[in-house]
Every structure is written in structure tokens, then in C-alpha cells.
């Protein structure tokens, strides 16, 4: 594998699907840099359908990303969209961050993988 071949991140949310899958290393430069990346997730949540964000494959997310993620959680709360996040308990930031996000939005459900 080339030294520069490693995929940084991906966000998959097929049209009509209620599940968004995030993967990789998410360390963009600012919260606003996540706007375009998280746009499909935002659209999903704004639809009002019960939504799932699977982040179990995200090994790292910087604080800008967590802030952007929190804005999605707050959006779901505002829109009364049922939101579930799928986490990997073996990845330290996920376990700790999601607990804090649930404190902000008690309606958030968290599933472990």
C-alpha cells in the first residue's frame, strides 16, 4: 500500500435509506468544513424519518467534528426526529462523546457494535 493511500473518511447515505454510515478518520479543519460532509445526514434528519447514524467505523473525530455532530443531534431534537447512533465501545472517543451528547439530548438512542 502506498504511504498516501489510506482513505481519510467517507459518508454514505443512499437515497431513500434511513441509515447514514460514517467511516475513517474525520479531522477536518473547522466545524464549517463538516457542513458539506454531513449534508446527507442533515437532509436525512430534516426528513423527520427515524434516522440512524452509524459511526462505529470512525476511528478518530476531532473536536470540530464532534461539534458538527452535536449540531446534528440538536437538529434532531428540534425536529423531533428519532435519532439513533451506532457506536463502537472499543474506540475511546465514541463512548465518551456519545454519553455527553445523550446528556444534551436525552431522546438520542445509542446502540453498541
Amino acid at each position, binding site marked *: 500500500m502506498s504511504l498516501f493511500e489510506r482513505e*481519510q473518511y467517507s459518508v454514505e447515505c443512499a437515497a431513500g435509506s434511513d441509515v447514514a454510515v460514517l467511516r475513517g*478518520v474525520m*479531522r*477536518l*479543519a*473547522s*466545524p*464549517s468544513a463538516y457542513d458539506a460532509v454531513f449534508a446527507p445526514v442533515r437532509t436525512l434528519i430534516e426528513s423527520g424519518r427515524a434516522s440512524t447514524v452509524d459511526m462505529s467505523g470512525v*476511528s*478518530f473525530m*476531532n*473536536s*470540530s467534528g*464532534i*461539534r458538527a455532530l*452535536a*449540531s446534528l443531534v*440538536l437538529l434532531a431534537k428540534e425536529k423531533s426526529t428519532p435519532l439513533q447512533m451506532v457506536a463502537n465501545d*472499543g*474506540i*475511546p*472517543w465514541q463512548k*465518551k*462523546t456519545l454519553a*455527553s451528547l445523550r*446528556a*444534551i439530548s436525552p431522546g438520542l438512542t445509542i446502540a453498541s457494535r
Partner: protein
Amino acid sequence: MTTPRLFGSLPGNGSASSHGADAERPLSELSLSFVPLAVVAEWTRCSEAADFVARYFAHDFGDRELAGNVLSTVVNELLENAVKFSSDKTVPARLIVREYAERMSIVSRNVTSPRQAAAFGDAVARLAHGDPEQMFADRIASPPETGGAGIGLIMLRKDYGAKVGVRVTPADGEGTAIVDVEVEIDNREVEGT
């Protein structure tokens, strides 16, 4: 002579330049010097540098994967902070990481404006005494670029029990300040125990 101002929960001996002769000798140490502008030009350099530093030290922990993940997270936040808060991005910033028997010390150094340095120091002082969960919630609810201590430092305190301290040293005649941010984490937090 300029007098440094100290903020936060550390005794204030955190410095990117040296540690006192009577201080505990580190088991391991690594330092980097980098030009913030180069990181702005290619932001993945932050992550790559953080991963390198994390792997370097993770060898000393039982669960290297876990320790590496925690260390990379912490180092990346400090690197990002140093780049973002550098007022002159052509002036090299520094990172120095020291491993002790029971703790890791990570120090970043960058130059910034005296005003921003003071605001940052005040915010770190509040962080030392506030409820990090509440501060996290408040920060999430505030506009993204509010200034002061970023959500990254709040999270390091909240999630890893980090002690955070800041030393602000005026740079005479230049209208700038040198900011050393020191984050100290218990090795048990690094190992997830």
C-alpha cells in the same frame, strides 16, 4: 524582563523550552517544531503528526491500540489549537511530549496576540474549576468561533481527566505573546483503566 502569567490547573512549570533541573526526569521525550502555515496548506499533516507521536509512545503501554488512540486524540487537539491560534503562521510552533512513570505531559507553544492569549488563559482558568460536562453543553450551544478555550480542551478534561494549564509570556516590543499550553494525563487514562 517579562513575567509569564499562569492559568489553569497546573503549577505552571509547563514549558516547551525546558524543564527544571530538579524536576522529575522523563522516561521518554519527543519534540516537534512545525510551521503552522504548512499545516494550514495541508491539514492532514496535523493528523499524521499526531499519529506518529502517538505510535512512538504507545509502545510503552499494555494496550498499544487503545493508548495510541487516546494519545493521538490528545496530541491532535493540541496541534490543531497551536495552528489555529498562531497569529503569525510563519513563526514555528512547537510540541513537546514527555512520558513519566504515572503521567503524560503534552505541551504546545505558539505565538498569538496578547489579547487572545489573555482570553485563552482566562478560559482555561475557568475550565480548571468548572464542571466540564456543563461547559461542553454550553459550548455546543454557543456559536462555533466564540474564542477562548476551545471545545477540544474541554473534551480533554471531560473525557480523559486532563489537567490543563497555560503560561502566557509577553514577547517584548513585538506586541505578541508566547502561549504554552500544557495538558497532563494520568497514564491510567491513556490505558483506559
